[in-house]
């Protein structure tokens, strides 16, 4: 559907009528089904409504009908990019309820896949962001480099997207010495490429002009709106579940939480590239120090009654699986809170008073994953003045929806 522009109303005291630009859900510029109703004044965004409810698949309900063995593949299919994040979050939650001790080798293999996933996700994001600002050379470069990561994952798991590595009690596939050597062999080149991007972001004109000062979010705002992941860390919030609530092998590996103080798309870009650097360190450490031993322990069919909030640092931020078991082989409830859902509130905030041409890159800066979120948030900015926004006004607007399609 092409961009549809309709003049809806003349605004008092203004020469120009308000214009609503409706973009999506199916549009060549969008990667996933989403609908933006953007009210603009000239080139400036006055208010915005974001509709993401095109993808609800009822996975949480479906998970209640299946036993744990069958829920894991279902969890992987919550999201294509961070499939390992969802299956690991679920598996480690169930394992904790069952009080299973997972062998260190399995923990390390899970960590390697998790960090490869983060690296490919961040490289993919950098490519998308570069494409959105018309810097297609960088898009080609990052996606080519991402192939090295994808090849490694494919060699280890047999798949490029849904790795199918996890099972309750450990992992399904072991790493052979040949696979470890091949993976280690790819790292120096990847490192060189990522270092190049780290350097490039400091001087490349296109990135500086299009990323700097765009979609600004202060540290206070980031905290107040519950922002997670690289979006929050770009605003100086140092929450990272890998450090705060260590799981897998993150307590062993040498790495640090990266933050930036820019708080704009530029900051989010830098944080993601630096995180890819940290991922490299973790992957190298885990490959070199892969413990010997079994890769899984037999898991009981039934889980005792229990409840757990399983937190996981997915590439896009904190992923939370709230799992309740009832003594059977099925979960009573699994409540998935995806990082994109947590980040929408801040996106709607970032966009007010920004340029309409920056919508794609600001939205892309949180690396939205609509299939796993499929939820909606909106912002209603009625007055022309957009520089001062009170807290009450804001929270009211975040929840109101009294314009548009109803």
């Amino acid at each position: 559907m092409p961009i549809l522009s309709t003049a809806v109303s003349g605004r008092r005291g203004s020469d120009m009528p308000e214009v609503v630009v409706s973009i999506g859900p199916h549009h060549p510029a969008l990667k996933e089904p989403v609908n933006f109703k953007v009210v603009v004044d000239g080139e400036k965004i006055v208010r915005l409504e974001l509709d993401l409810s095109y993808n609800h698949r009822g996975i949480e309900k479906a998970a209640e009908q299946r036993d744990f063995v069958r829920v894991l593949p279902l969890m992987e299919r919550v999201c294509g990019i961070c499939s390992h994040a969802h299956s690991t979050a679920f598996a480690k939650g169930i394992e904790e309820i069952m009080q299973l001790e997972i062998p260190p080798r399995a923990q390390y293999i899970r960590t390697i896949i998790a960090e490869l996933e983060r690296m490919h996700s961040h490289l993919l994001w950098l490519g998308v962001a570069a494409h959105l600002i018309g810097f297609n050379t960088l898009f080609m470069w990052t996606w080519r480099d991402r192939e090295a990561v994808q090849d490694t994952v494919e060699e280890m798991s047999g798949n490029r997207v849904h790795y199918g590595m996890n099972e309750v009690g450990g992992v399904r596939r072991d790493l052979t010495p040949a696979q470890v050597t091949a993976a280690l062999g790819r790292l120096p080149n990847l490192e060189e490429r990522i270092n190049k991007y780290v350097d490039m972001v400091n001087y490349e004109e296109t990135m500086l002009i299009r990323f700097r000062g765009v979609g600004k979010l202060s540290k206070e705002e980031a905290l107040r709106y519950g922002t997670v992941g690289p979006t929050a860390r770009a605003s100086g919030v140092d929450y990272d579940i890998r450090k705060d609530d260590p799981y897998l092998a993150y307590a062993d590996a040498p790495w640090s939480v990266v933050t930036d103080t820019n708080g704009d798309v530029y900051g989010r870009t830098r944080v993601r590239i630096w995180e890819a650097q940290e991922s490299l360190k973790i992957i190298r450490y885990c490959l070199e120090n892969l413990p010997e031993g079994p890769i899984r322990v037999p898991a009981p069919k039934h889980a005792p009654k229990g409840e757990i909030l399983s937190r996981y640092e997915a590439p896009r931020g904190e992923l939370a699986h709230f799992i309740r078991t009832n003594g059977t082989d099925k979960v009573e409830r699994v409540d998935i809170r995806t990082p994109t859902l947590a980040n929408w509130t801040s996106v709607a905030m970032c966009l007010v008073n920004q340029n309409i041409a920056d919508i794609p890159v600001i939205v892309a800066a949180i690396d939205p994953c609509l299939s796993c979120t499929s939820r909606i948030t909106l912002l209603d900015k009625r007055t022309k003045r957009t520089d001062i926004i009170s807290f009450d006004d804001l929270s009211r607007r975040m929840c109101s929806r009294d314009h548009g399609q109803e």
Partner: protein
Amino acid sequence: MTESLTLDIVAGKMKEFGNAEQVRKNRIRITTPPDRVHEAIRMIQAIFGFDRLITISAVDNGRTLELVYHLTGPHRMVVSIAVELPRDQPAIPTTSDILPSAAIYERQIHDLFGIQFPGHPRLTKIILNEDWPQDEFPLRKDWEPHADTFYGGIRKERI
């Protein structure tokens, strides 16, 4: 990172709201009556500096509907505040006035479980499509889809 919180400190300060228990390292769970939740969250924000709502989880346990508010802060401890609501006409005051990010989660729970949040600025459909039947809440245990009900998409007569 500020000094870590222990169960004793949290339990001591939050005694009036209900029992606190340590579920595992880094996690404390407080069970409180529905009308005290708002107050409990404000208290925990003021005393311990909890500045982030992780999520609000909802569970149908067959008898009642449960809500669990998970909060965290600079000390990285997660405190979960749990409440139980009756199945007929479940309602609990909104927390979106003190936690802006709660608004989205409350609307989602409203859609899927049919819990009312009095004081919420606008509790409309968020996760289900707009033509979803008004009185059906798919994540309740007793929900069954009906063959003759329209759940969205394209109506049969138009195919």
